[in-house]
């Protein structure tokens, strides 16, 4: 593996996944330092523009973490997130960006270990895909 360090922007919902990430911390679980978490109140707050902006501004991957279906603190926000992300993945592929670079994970407040697993797994996966080439061909 080259010394490529993937940059992954993560949007974690305040109630489940952000809390789970805190739990991973208090439990001193170790995972790849490539994930940078941005806290939102609900995965339903994640605007597709954020994801595209992240890719355009240098992210190699984007991770969205929300409560499991049925567990959303705001009842149904995560269902919107699910539909948006699935559509976005299709569009990304047409933009020539592998859909693996955008990932949606349901991680409940008690699943600190899942945060660790997902962070490591995604970092490894993105590392395999290599750096995201921006769409700025010239000439």
């Amino acid at each position, binding site marked *: 593996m080259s010394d490529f*360090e993937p*940059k992954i*922007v993560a949007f974690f919902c*305040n*109630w*489940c996944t*952000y*809390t789970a*990430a*805190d739990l*991973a*911390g*208090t439990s*001193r*679980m*170790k*995972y790849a*330092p490539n994930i*940078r*978490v*941005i*806290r*939102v*109140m*609900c995965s*339903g*707050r*994640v*605007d*597709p*523009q*954020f994801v595209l*902006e*992240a890719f355009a*501004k*240098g*992210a190699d991957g984007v991770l969205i973490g929300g409560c499991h279906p*049925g*567990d959303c*603190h*705001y*009842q*149904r*926000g995560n269902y*919107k997130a699910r539909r*948006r992300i699935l559509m976005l993945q299709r569009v990304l592929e047409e933009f020539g960006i592998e859909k693996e670079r955008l990932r949606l994970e349901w991680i*409940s*407040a*008690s*699943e600190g270990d899942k945060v*660790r697993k997902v962070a490591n797994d995604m970092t490894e996966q993105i590392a395999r895909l290599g750096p995201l080439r921006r769409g700025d061909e010239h000439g």
Partner: protein
Amino acid sequence: MSEEIRVGVYVCHCGSNIAGIIDVKSVAEEASKYPNVVVSREYKYMCSDPGQALIQEDIKQHNLNRIVVASCSPLLHEHTFRNATEKGGVNPFLFQMVNLREHDSWVHEDKEKATKKAIALVRAAVRRVALHSALERKEVPINPDVLIVGGGIAGIHAALTLANAGKLVYLVEKEPTIGGHMAKFDKTFPTLDCAACILTPKMTQVRAHPNIRLWSYSEVAGVDGFVGNFRVKVKRKPRYVDEEACIGCLACIEACIYKEGKFPDEFNMGLSKRKPIYFPFPQAVPQLAVIDPETCIEFKTGKCKKTCVAACDRNAIDFTQKETIEEISVGTIILATGFKAFDASRMPEYGYGTLSNVYTALEIERLVNSSGPTAGEVVLKNGQHPKSVGIIHCVGSRDEKTNKWCSRVCCMYSLKLAHLLREHTGAEIYNFYIDMRAPGKGYEEFYDRLLQEDGTHFIRGRVAEVTDWAMTEEEEGRLVIRVEDTLAGFVRRIPCDMVVLSVGLEPTPDAQDVRRMFNISCSTEGFFLERHPKLAPVNTFTDGIFLAGTCQGPKDIPDTVAQAGAAAAEALALIDRGSIELEPNTAYVVEDKCSGCHTCIALCPYNAISYDEEKKVAQINEALCKGCGTCVAACPSSAIVQRLFEDAEILEEIEGVLL
């Protein structure tokens, strides 16, 4: 924004928790180079008084108008630092927190990379905070009434504490009587005082208390609203006996056409029989008879003589009773829904349900109890007294295949039962344990005492099986416990007449439904999740909902009562404050951008969005808005803004972290 932005950045060492991994000095140095940053410091403990004072002095000296603190999780200390910022004379929302501990130093080992990440996170916060605008704190009043779910010792104790403090308490219990598991116990460890003697007085207090509305045989059917203003639906199951009229004289039960009890008695773990109309147990609260429609002839055939009706001179019996739904409003909720004992038949190797004379600990509690099915006489199925009894610890605990956790009470109650069984029968008692765990006041001493009692033996080893397969004369017709004695270092076969399975504690089967209904979380094993294992053990992630007793995890009676008290105190603290502050992270519509496309309206789970026919734009009722931001993300013309989470702020954060 015309004013000049002046940011102060504070990087916390948190002792070595952060500084041990992250080079805080260089983080602070880097931050000092960013636009708008006027001061950038690192300090040992930002949450300490001097730490907070530091912020306030800087605000005065450098007239800062934005604050960034890079320390631990905002879920832990955001409040602290917002207050510090406000004390310094800056609006508390012109503040941004960076989570360097939980999300960086505690989870990464590579110092260089961890530091780089820290710098990126701080950069993001600095960029973001520049766009923050001053916000009003949002307060909502707290309804002083309290709902307590579950009438075991936890619910009872919490209810009495609150009621004595003059609060109105609704105590909802699913069974016909309160008392829970504790009411079934004979004695309690380590003091061996009788459970009924200490519990029943509290039960009667509940019944008599003017501030307690006791709804037994009832279940919560629905919850909405939020801290301070919950609206709760309670389903009241019909007991077919008029609560007002019945005085608990038992005449109806006497008169039932079943002369003898015929159906397994729940309270005695099925070891005795009851009639279709019955009294859960003599000290039951409320003192009301209840009819079980599953077994009552009138319900099954409609052709019963109804001798019970005739016997009741207060006409309390009413076969026409229907389930009713009561609606109440409360400000706070305490969940005390208790535990379920592990189902021993899940471990067939121990023969529960297939071999006679294999009992669970709860059954033994009833057997040794003088008001139990045998009036306290411990007899085998063949009527004889056991000469030897084996007590198997950790059944359904500390086991990969069933439950991984230690149930915390089994060691001690096994000792208690060992003592009681020895006392009642004089039998040889064998304890089979993995480790003896006696961490509690007087517990180790109690263990010591049992070690001294002759006829009580301790064998360290996990039992492989209980079988009636005899290899020797001595074993014939008895139960054989096969175990590797890990102290003696060989496999032993120990014949016993009676085997007691010390079953562990599990979440109740409906824990997941309850969790969803109250919008709280469960830990992986299924017990309700507390907000913080050390600092907020009775709080949940949902404000205004608290936990008491074993629904949060296995615990003994002293701990349960202590926690119930704590939950009551937390509720009181909220109630007496009179109001609670909410995050001002609500959304609003920018009217001159809204085209009235109606996309957002159906998205709101709280119906906070409506369409203004006059102005032809959407409107958000901020009293109803909970600040999820779903509509903001959905608005196709970016006409909805969420305070504290504005698009521009998040976009800055994105650029910031991408260092």
